[in-house]
């Protein structure tokens, strides 16, 4: 088990190096540097331009800038955001809980709805429910997030007035410290009556929007995996033993059918991060996705490089954990046996 873990861990090193290089190069290929984007019609004198470029190290050859960047990273220094002059790591840590909370609720939504729906569809294969579910999940999978988010806001929040439009909490009625950065947790800690419920209400729409794509994937995966398992000999044996259908499906079939679903959930994390960029923008959700988008506009090299690397680290970490869980659930895989 330890050997497997170390092997997987070693494999992440080249991934990180490639990421460091790609983010570093990609942002520099976009025209305009951090100094130029600050300049409007006034223009800037060549002396001031040269001075600022020098201060930011932009007058150095690119290879030199890259080596400096890697050297600092190796010392745990992600740099300072050019826009806010705050440490990139601090900014990331401030914003990441919001993204994590949203992603967790989105995934929870996808699993809680997707797994039972997929299982039922498999059991009632060919039924109207099955066909409807498969069609809906295909729609969900291909839904443009921006459009879907706005549609829900317009209908549920504006037309019906059922849920808040955006943000994480009702700003007029609630104000409390946020020691953890997770609004639901901080609301519970705040002792303000109704705050927790309000935080949940704010989570519903963004979680549905962000969870829609993984929901489609999870439901379809559960269904197909379940169909395969239902045809296995041990399921037939269980039925022949006279076990109740609920026990056969719930314990014998579903548990085994969930193995590939776990992998799919792990893979969906990178999709969640990508989806968070859009979802956070629509719902004014103060997470890392929105921050990265703004950093591109401002050519905030350190924020963008550090941010992408940190988000990638999270994705790689989650995938590593999923691999390990998978190995734990199915000992055949882990260990190359």
């Amino acid at each position, binding site marked *: 088990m330890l050997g497997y873990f170390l092997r997987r861990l070693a494999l992440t090193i080249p991934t990180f190096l490639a990421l460091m290089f790609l983010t570093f190069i990609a942002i520099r290929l976009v025209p305009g540097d951090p100094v130029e984007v600050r300049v409007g019609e006034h223009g800037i004198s060549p002396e001031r331009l040269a001075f600022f470029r020098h201060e930011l190290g932009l007058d150095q050859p690119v290879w030199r800038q890259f080596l400096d960047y890697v050297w600092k990273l190796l010392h745990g220094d992600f740099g300072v955001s050019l826009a806010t002059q705050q440490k990139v790591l601090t900014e990331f840590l401030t914003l990441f809980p919001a993204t994590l909370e949203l992603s967790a609720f989105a995934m929870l939504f996808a699993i809680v709805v997707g797994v039972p729906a997929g299982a039922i569809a498999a059991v009632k294969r060919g039924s109207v429910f099955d066909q409807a579910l498969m069609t809906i999940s295909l729609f969900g999978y291909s839904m443009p997030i921006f459009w879907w988010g706005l549609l829900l806001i317009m209908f549920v929040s504006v037309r019906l007035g059922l849920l808040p439009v955006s*943000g994480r909490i009702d700003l007029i009625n609630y104000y409390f410290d946020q020691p953890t950065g997770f609004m639901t947790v901080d609301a519970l800690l705040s002792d303000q009556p109704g705050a927790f419920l309000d935080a949940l209400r704010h989570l519903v729409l963004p979680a549905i929007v962000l969870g829609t794509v993984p929901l489609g994937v999870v439901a379809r995966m559960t269904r197909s995996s379940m169909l395969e398992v239902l045809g296995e000999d041990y399921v037939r044996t269980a039925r022949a033993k006279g076990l109740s259908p609920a026990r056969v499906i719930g314990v014998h079939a579903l548990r085994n059918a969930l193995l590939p679903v776990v992998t799919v959930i792990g893979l969906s994390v990178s999709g969640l991060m990508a989806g968070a960029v859009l979802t956070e923008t629509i719902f004014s959700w103060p997470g890392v996705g929105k921050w990265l988008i703004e950093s591109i506009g401002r050519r905030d090299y350190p924020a963008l490089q550090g941010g992408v690397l940190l988000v990638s680290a999270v994705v790689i970490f989650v995938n590593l954990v999923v691999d390990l869980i998978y190995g734990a659930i199915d000992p055949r895989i882990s260990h190359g046996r």
Partner: protein
Amino acid sequence: MKFNIFAGVAIAALVAGANAGSAKTLVYCSEGSPENFTPAINTTGTSFDAARPVYNRLTEFKRGTTEVVPGLAESWDIADGGKTITFHLRKGVKFHALKDFKPTRAFDADDVLWSIDRQWKPDHPYSKISGGKYDYFNDMDMPSLLDSVTKTDDHTIVMKLKEPNVAILANLAMDFMAIGSKEYADFLLKKGTPEQFDQAPVGTGPFSFVAYQKDSVIRYKANKDFYGEKPLVDDLVFAITPDATARYAKLKAGECHVNAYPRPADLDEMKKDPALEVISAPGLNIAFWAFNVNKPPLDKKAVRQALSMAIDRDAIVKDVYLGAGEKAKTLIPRTMWSYDDAIADYPYDPAKAKAMLAAAGVQTPLEIDLWYQPVQRPYNPNGKRIGEMMQADLAKVGVNAKLVTYEWGEYRKRAQAGEDMTAQLGWTGDNGDPDNFFFLDGCTDGKPAGNNIPKWCNAEFNDLLVKARVIPDQAERAKLYRRMQEIEHEEAPELLLAHSIVSEAMRANVTGYKQSPLGTHAFEGVDIK
């Protein structure tokens, strides 16, 4: 079944939500996060808006106008032919308190000196804090305008200028000249956290800073001790909402009271909604098409006038600005003092244009370069599209315009160097003073690398420009600026295309909100009924 009942109750509870009453809170749906709360070190309107509730300046813009009125300076005397300005400071103005800082003294001259010197003197203890880029201080030419700033007593500041320029009073009302607390700065320096000065601001303004959560919310509390127009609400909240459609949805749902930068496409629908109110005014900007007078035949006035009549600007405003623009006839928008409404605009008259070109001895087809802006600017939503429409109009009068563009930095540099024959460009005003627009046609800026893109230098125009800088009386200055508008119109160094129209949307129960021609947002005197 049990599960269904539970789910039903949970969902009902979720959608019902809490709606407890509280003190009067005004929510402004702003468009983004500030970079920090010190206007001197940032350049975006978003950051200026976020710092404005907290700070005051020596002079202020009267809310909803570009008129300069007393701020922390109660009055001032101009002497020495406009080269010396003595400011008499307001007494007994209190700074805000924060959790970890309680001011022990009122505002005085040391705070003014500290705030100006931070941007000016490299040996100032805060000069390098938070990046130390004082773009506006430099852009507004403050280092070349200021000779010295000193205090003669705790409530008197003497500002000596290198050359007379009364327009500096408008510069002092700009955000970058916000006056911070020296006591707070010293306290933070001693504590070892000087950066906090730019993150948790202490000022004298109508609202004091309470808290900021990045990308989420900024909270302020009314400053009951404020010396000026009192805040009418208890709390002010900036709900940071970058997506314009989401801002509109929040406004509609009553989650915010005032909405920053509504999308022009939403305005019609907003106007129809009785729960909302939309107000509009021209922005403090101008888009123009400059004729390089050094490139024949554009050296002839008649040719420039003819080209001015060849362009259908109504069509451009309608099709490209989509209602968010207004045809311009002088450099300054109609909201600015000294605007001359008596100027008769150039009509769209291709037949006359063609005849004038012929009378001026221009052989058609005439080949010209038409540079179009590669980027969207507040005054020009689509340079390329405007360029194409102009090209089509020009073809009708026998002028073949070749469309040219460059990367934005390069474009501006080449146009300023006078490499173009004709070029689109524009200007966004900074301080609401007409000088800040008319200098664009002054002779100093007509030199290579200057902002005068037509490279036009008219002796009378330039004399008036220089003279207007030393006259303290605004009505007198306005006379000169009106004459300059006549000269500019007659000489046509550029065709003035349009000013953008800026709209703001709010709930109908919001009272007292005044739209600023400077594009800023301020909430003192604003109430919710």
